[in-house]
């Protein structure tokens, strides 16, 4: 087997393990993962220490028990960084100019949020259109 395929196989086992929905399934997947890595004690040792430290923080079996609103990764803040940098234009401004640009970004961002709040009250969804039961709620209750 090629070395590249070894890495692929091990990573597949890791992904499967991290995404197990319950702790029983996770335990089974863990055994499988250990099986895959049995030839590489050094790596297995590292993976086990990492898991011991952050198991509750990354494995779905644990994280799915809290209300995380779909934030499994730090994508949200990464995209926020990208947005800030789009406004900053360059990386050599002083704090005054950085503030000015970030302020402009915030103004637009907060308007967009306020807009969605307004829309959630005023817009009546099509799927409720023919349901007479909800008819009186349109424009009075937010979605």
């Amino acid at each position: 087997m090629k070395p590249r395929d070894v890495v692929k196989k091990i990573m597949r086992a890791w992904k499967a393990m991290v995404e197990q929905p319950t702790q029983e399934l996770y335990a089974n997947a863990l055994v499988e993962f250990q099986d895959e890595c049995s030839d590489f004690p050094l790596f297995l040792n590292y993976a086990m220490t990492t898991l011991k430290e952050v198991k509750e923080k990354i494995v779905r079996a644990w994280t799915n028990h809290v209300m995380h609103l779909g934030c499994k990764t730090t994508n949200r803040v990464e995209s926020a960084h990208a947005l800030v940098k789009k406004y900053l234009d360059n990386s050599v401004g002083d704090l005054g100019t950085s503030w000015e640009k970030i302020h402009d970004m915030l103004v637009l961002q907060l308007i967009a949020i306020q807009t969605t709040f307004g829309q959630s009250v005023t817009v009546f969804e099509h799927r409720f259109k023919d349901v007479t039961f909800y008819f009186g709620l349109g424009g009075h209750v937010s979605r």
Partner: protein
Amino acid sequence: MVSGYLSRKTNEWGLNILNGVHDHAMEPTLEGHILAGRLKEDDKKIVRDLTKSKMLPRNILINLKNKRPHCMTNIKQVYNERQQIWKANRGDKKSLQYLISKLEEHKYTYFSRIQSESTTIEDIFWAHPTSVMLFNNFPTVLVMDSTYKTNMYKMPMFEVVEVTSTDLTYSVGFGFVTHEKEENFVWVLKMSRKLLTSKKNMPKVIVTNMEMSLMKTIGNLFPKSYAKNCYFHAQANVKQRCILDCKYPLEKRMGKR
């Protein structure tokens, strides 16, 4: 300007003076002449307005040219005018004084800390008043991370974002820190905790990357929140290690040497 000629009668050279003042013919266009290209008062107003809305100098020049096709302004004059505007804006304030005056003017919540034994700023953190209001209403999932290359002082920018009920991201606060050490994270997180008015509204979940010092700080400062890690970052770390240990095992690397 002069022109030379050879006289047929005397067979001698002579010179005719065409113009005694200039050494060239009249230019057909006036581009590059300072007086012709200067910005007039209403041009200056356009430049001021467009600069305020962060338009690039070249776009400002396009705007001027569209308004008056025959105007002879060049890009340098736009740059000069922008510099004047910038100077007038700042007055004699230093960058930080200007920042603080602006923060106060827009009623931001801000905190700063100076380095011990000197007057250099260590960390600064600010939050927009509306952001603070939103933060108190939707404190469910806090996502935080720092990024580089945002300013000339090479201070990492630490950003904290939250999710609204309409599934949009909003920025709670921005912190500029000198180092990414535990002490700095403790300070920034303490300041963001200060924004919450009620102790009952502590964030339920906090998502971070695999930064050890940040993870430790969160455990101490938000004991009731569930600290979560980005599984993607964790996976990247594992993969890196896997490539090192399994693709190129130690014996193989030693053998190559």
